[in-house]
């Protein structure tokens, strides 16, 4: 069970939170072209690397927060996790 660094509650089991997804800026609906809008709706970077994403504390603080997670290793950074994943390199 992945530990997610909730900035309000501390490290929590991932099952206490909901993964919202990659964070993207919502275009202005009045000026966006259909292509821009649908890029926002559907296209994703889906990198196997550091990704800025949103999580929501469904069973803790009910806050949305952004973190950087490496989707290949599941490490978090910024807000810095204590050490390297609780002191582990794994």
């Amino acid at each position, binding site marked *: 069970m992945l530990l997610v660094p909730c900035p309000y509650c501390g490290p929590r089991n991932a099952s206490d939170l909901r*993964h919202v*997804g990659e964070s993207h800026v919502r275009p202005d609906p009045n000026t966006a072209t*259909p*292509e821009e809008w649908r*890029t926002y709706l*559907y296209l*994703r*970077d889906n990198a196997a690397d550091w990704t800025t994403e949103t999580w929501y504390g469904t069973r803790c603080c009910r806050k949305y927060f952004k973190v950087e997670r490496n*989707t290949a290793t599941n490490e978090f950074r910024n807000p810095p996790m204590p050490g390297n994943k609780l002191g582990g390199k794994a």
Partner: protein
Amino acid sequence: MGLFNLGRGSDGRPPKYSAAGLFAKGLTGGEWPRVWRDVPLKKSYDVIIIGGGVHGLATAYYLATNHGITNVAVLDKAYLGSGGSGRNTAIVRSNYLTPEGVAFYDRSLELYNGMTEDLNINVMFSERGHLTLAHSDSALRTMHWRAEVNKLQNIDSSVIDPQQVKEIVPSLDISPDAHHPIMGALYHPPGGIIRHDAVVWGYARGADHRGVEMHQKTEVLDILCEGGEGPDGKGAGGKVTGVRTNRGDISAPVVVNCTAGWASLISDMAGVRLPITTQPLQAAVTEPTKVFLPAVVVSGSLHVYVSQTDRGELVFGAAVDPFTNYNVRGSLDFTEGLAGHILELMPGVSRMRLLRQWAGLCDMTPDYSPVMGFTPVEGFLVDVGWGTYGFKAGPVSGEQMAECIATNQTPKLIEAFPLSRFATGELVGEKGAAAVGH
């Protein structure tokens, strides 16, 4: 070809697999030839297919078989079938929700049905029936919807009541006071399971016989493009010239992305962005017991599906993990949830033991449908976004992608699945009732 001819046949092809051949080998201690050749990597091909799974291999097979295009290389960064093709739960069915989905998967089922003879390898297709359980009024309504769409397209599919469910699968608990009572099921007799590795090896062997090359441990590091609007000539308006691999550059006018789990990363190499998120899907298998489960059982609302192999193992799968992730290590919470749901459906199996768990990567799209065909980069085609249903679609995808490449036109069966639909907003209706179905 004589019974004891153990070398190449008069047509230069290896001997067929048969009971007689097995018998002869048993008597003489003779050896079977290599299932596919080990040949040097060339500098150039007519078509390069990235991904040596069932989709890539089937595409290569049908390019050679149906269109005579044999100067083809299939590249895999590991070994053939190492990705989703070897990690899925090997369920096949065609009872989808939309007419376009039904037609497509029905063609796949047809190809699976003839595969043992077509490929001369026993893929052990077990047409044992497929049950999707409904635990609520609304689920039952969706089952009826699927059944009706299926019936109109001559797919054998109907909604049955709990007693009929019990007759087919006696181990299910159909008591109405269960927390997730079984209120009925969508029954699809042509659905079943198949030996997924045999499908991979069969296509590889068939493609090899026709001159296609399989190159394992050959990782694509970049896709070479020219003329595109992005950096290095990538992106819209450009065209493909080849690929860069860990074994050197290879040129080709056509490069096909047939990967799952790495679809976004490969497409990025050509400057093509996809509507995909990658999430692991977990699966597990129990120790074998004497066979007691005769059909494939799926519960959409409990996110679980189970079948029992001829070896007696229960094979389970689940929904995709709740966050994007390229990590295929198994998780404990998956097995806990899975066991809980299975025991609600079949309380009698509590003493069976989970032997092994694993995960595969699924490329999820917003409308639960694949992305197939041309991209804004000329010569770069995709067959991606297969979510949790890629294995079922392997044969038909290969057939249709081969036609797409050979004719340079989108075949009718995959007209609903272009990448461009995410620019026009015309998503596929499988999103309509996004109940999990496997």
